[in-house]
């Protein structure tokens, strides 16, 4: 488009020559230019109007299409439930091995408020604060008189509270049905069950989700609608669990311990019949995780599964059993346990600096000689010792049906020297959970098969990898029985039930590193019964016990964990349908086994 010049010189000059006003030319050209501009504007406007028209056509079409889609879709009842419909509130019950309820869902109500529908918000706030002492009056008043249109008041109501709120007659206070998780046995098996809380919450429903323990581990399964409410059957026995807890609790206070744990396991099936960790809590109102102090001292902490401790002399039987299994020794082989016994520059001592002289392998276990098992460990060698402990499960967290189980990861020496081998043979330098120990002892008790502990009911015995020959296992059982009849665990015998076991007293390592406490111990008694045909393995662990009935305080397992375990066995063996047997059992020494008499 060529621009029209306003004053073309040629025309101006021509006009001047003719005596015309040259401004007329400029005016004319301005007019033309303006007309031109208007024409262009008109054409552009035409295009843009067309664009607008098409846009409006599309917009009206869109609204129409959307109307059509809406009209074609299905109408639904106008209920606020729409958001809650997708919440699956059901959750299967958890029962023990005999079908007794450990956890179940109960219908309850939640309380919420629509402040805009309230008639007397001030009165409602005041009276609610009276009904629920844990709610603050100021807070309620602020919520009810503010601009909010929805306020949660209380997540769970008891029927009495609900009636009391109902009697207020305030239309702005509303109830929503919801399920709640109820643990009818209170704190019983608290650590196993864990507890539950609310996930997605709606007014008309709320999702119940597991917070810890087996509730969390099987959360998906328990909430799976396809389950159709089939309960989750645990291996736990409610009565045994209750008896164990009561005995352990009494023992804990009697022995002035700050914590305690016990595991009772079926040696053949791997079923955990009872699992106790004290102090405990009520899963119905699971406390918040501690923010201060050692997490290991919190009631939420599961000492039997999460707690890893140096479990002391209870490990000695593994060295003895492996040495026998490898054919290095028999139970009568005599080992020199006299000092000095130096490994890697460290002298290995005995309890109270005793000197047992020369001992048979059986007596090493019975008298609990550190130097004896140390020598066995050196004979076995580091690699074979590691392989054996690994097969027993001491290298990995127990694959257990609790979310906390991976937390119980054993602590292994960073560099496994000969010294490590020796100390580990008597239970120092390797920390593991009581559950690990139970699995290890179960392998001895069931004749040499590795066992995977489980919380679920099993119908048949596990036949895991063979880790020990049947003969060696049997010999180890005899030694353990002898520990009870004439060794360090003499208080552990329960007439008729032939308890066998091994004590363990381990000094607690200082938290800030660098050596061990003199006056803080972990006492463990690892037992199996009945000794001639072991069916159950029981581990009892006391944290920092001290027995004060004597002249000076006693901190050995024989004085603390063993009597507690014995009482426990006396109480639970009848519950396990074990018939007392007053025969000789393993005590009648067969010809092949001659116990050393010194």
């Amino acid at each position: 488009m060529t621009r029209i010049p306003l004053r073309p010189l040629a025309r101006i000059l021509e006009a001047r020559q003719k005596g015309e006003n040259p401004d007329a030319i400029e005016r004319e050209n301005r007019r033309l230019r303006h007309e031109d501009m208007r024409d262009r504007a008109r054409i552009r406007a035409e295009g843009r109007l067309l664009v607008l028209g098409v846009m409006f056509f599309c917009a009206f079409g869109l609204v129409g299409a959307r109307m059509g889609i809406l009209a074609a879709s299905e109408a639904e009842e106008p209920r606020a439930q729409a958001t809650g419909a997708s919440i699956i509130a059901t959750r299967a019950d958890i029962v023990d091995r005999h079908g007794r309820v450990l956890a179940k869902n109960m219908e309850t109500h939640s309380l919420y408020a629509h402040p805009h529908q309230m008639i007397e918000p001030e009165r409602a706030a005041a009276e609610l604060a009276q009904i629920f002492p844990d709610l603050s009056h100021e807070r309620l008043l602020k919520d009810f008189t503010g601009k909010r249109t929805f306020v949660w008041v209380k997540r769970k109501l008891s029927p009495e509270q609900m009636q009391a709120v109902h009697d207020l007659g305030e239309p702005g206070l509303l109830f929503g049905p919801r399920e709640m998780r109820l643990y009818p046995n209170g704190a019983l098996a608290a650590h196993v069950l864990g507890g539950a809380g609310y996930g997605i919450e709606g007014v008309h429903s709320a999702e119940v989700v597991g917070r810890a323990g087996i509730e969390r581990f099987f959360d998906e399964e328990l909430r799976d609608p396809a389950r159709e409410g089939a309960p989750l059957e645990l291996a736990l026995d409610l009565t045994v669990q209750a008896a164990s807890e009561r005995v352990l609790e009494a023992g804990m206070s009697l022995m002035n311990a700050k914590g305690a744990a016990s595991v009772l396991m079926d040696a053949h099936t791997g079923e955990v019949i009872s699992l106790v960790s004290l102090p405990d809590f009520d899963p119905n109102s699971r406390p918040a995780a501690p923010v201060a102090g050692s997490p290991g001292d919190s009631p939420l902490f599961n000492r039997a599964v999460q707690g890893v401790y140096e479990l002391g002399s209870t490990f000695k039987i593994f060295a003895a059993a492996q040495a026998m299994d490898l054919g290095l020794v028999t139970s009568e082989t005599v080992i020199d346990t006299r000092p000095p016994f130096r490994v890697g520059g460290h002298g290995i001592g005995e309890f109270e600096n005793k000197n047992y002289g020369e001992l048979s392998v059986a007596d090493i276990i019975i008298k609990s000689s550190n130097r004896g098992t140390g020598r066995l460990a050196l004979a076995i060698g580091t690699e074979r010792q590691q392989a054996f402990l690994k097969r027993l499960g001491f290298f990995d967290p127990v694959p257990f049906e609790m979310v906390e189980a991976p937390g119980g990861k054993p602590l292994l020496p960073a560099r496994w020297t000969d010294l490590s081998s020796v100390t580990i043979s008597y239970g120092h330098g390797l920390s593991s959970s009581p559950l690990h120990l139970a699995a290890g002892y179960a392998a001895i008790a069931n004749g040499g098969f590795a066992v995977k502990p489980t919380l679920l009911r099993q119908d048949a015995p596990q036949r895991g990898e063979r880790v020990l020959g049947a003969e060696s296992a049997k010999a180890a059982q005899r030694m353990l029985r002898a520990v009870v009849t004439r060794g360090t665990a003499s208080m552990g015998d329960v007439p008729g039930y032939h308890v066998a076991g091994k004590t363990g007293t381990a000094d607690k390592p200082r938290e800030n590193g660098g050596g061990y406490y003199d006056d803080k111990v972990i006492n463990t008694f690892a037992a199996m019964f009945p000794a001639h045909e072991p069916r159950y393995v029981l581990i009892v662990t006391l944290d920092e016990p001290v027995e004060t009935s004597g002249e000076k305080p006693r901190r050995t397992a024989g004085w603390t964990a063993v009597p507690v375990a014995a009482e426990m066995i006396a109480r639970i063996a009848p519950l396990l349908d074990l018939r007392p047997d007053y025969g000789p059992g393993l005590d009648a020494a067969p010809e092949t086994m001659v116990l050393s008499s010194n």
Partner: protein
Amino acid sequence: MTEMVYGAVPARDVEPVLPKWWRTVDRWSLSCVLMLFSIGLLLGLAASPPLAERNGLDPFYYVQRQAVFGGAALVAMLVTSMMRPQLVRRLAVIGFGAAFIALALLPFFGTDFGKGAVRWYGMGFASVQPSEFLKPAFVIMAAWLMAAAQDLGGPPGRLYSFIIMVLIVAMLAMQPDFGQAALVLFGWSVMWFVGGASMLLLIVLALMVVLAGTLAYNNSEHFARRIDGFLSPDVDPTTQLGFATNAIREGGFFGVGVGEGQVKWSLPDAHTDFIIAVAAEEYGLVMVGVIIALYATVAIRSLVRLMRERDPFIRLAGTGLACMFAVQALINMGVAVRLLPAKGMTLPFVSYGGSSLIAGGIAVGMLLAFTRNRPQGEIGDILRGRVR
């Protein structure tokens, strides 16, 4: 003989008003508007009795009022559509001054009828919302300014109109009435667009609107709640929107039947902002389709007719009026089907409301006046050999 002596009665070179009007007016749009008005009365029969009942009035009280106001609106529309564009412009500019002052004085003399926004003058028998009258008057005013800017030695009309627009939008936003503010802004933008705005400035304006929206979202709880409600995927069925959506679903293709609808009992704004839901429930998609088609016809026919228009003022003013009319309808229906966030906006001619009806009548009257057939100077093109 008389004629031979005194000469013939001088023939009037001006065609009589009515025949000329009938010949030149866009009769399609006119009939569409009349049909919309009748549909409004029909729907009012369905939608307003619950409100009348709530207010303890005769069941058809609001229908009667609607008929009276509608009659007045129709008269205003017809009279306006018979005027010459210049007359329309003069009156509208005067009206603009009056409405502008009325709007500015609202904070001092207005009333909010307990709805939280001061938008009305209570006048006993009826209430007047100045912004309803201001909208069409502003369109004319802005079109006049913009068109004048294209004249030789004209004023910087676009700048003036922009300043006026900003003033009005600010006053409306302070009420607050974001819906009307958005409409005014939209009307001005459309005129600016058709009047030849550069694309760059258009993009800048779009960005400014986005910015303003974000600011409003962050600073106005009222506004933020609406947007949040729109963005959340599932609608709470106990809100107006939920009821409206449900009503459309209930209605299906042919409706639940005259008088059988339920939504009008639950929706406080069934007779105004959500009248389309009442229509959809009782008369089904068929009726909704008819309503949409009527609005689309008025808007698109007007725009097509304006494409031929040579006078910049008429073109711009007509565009602004047609687009505002169409967008108001679009927003109202778009909200009901959840294409847009909840915004109170009446459905022109169909919704109940005195001042909105009369203002709508005047606006459409102006539009009809502007879209009348008139010589466009095509002969000049032919003479200048610039026929396209």
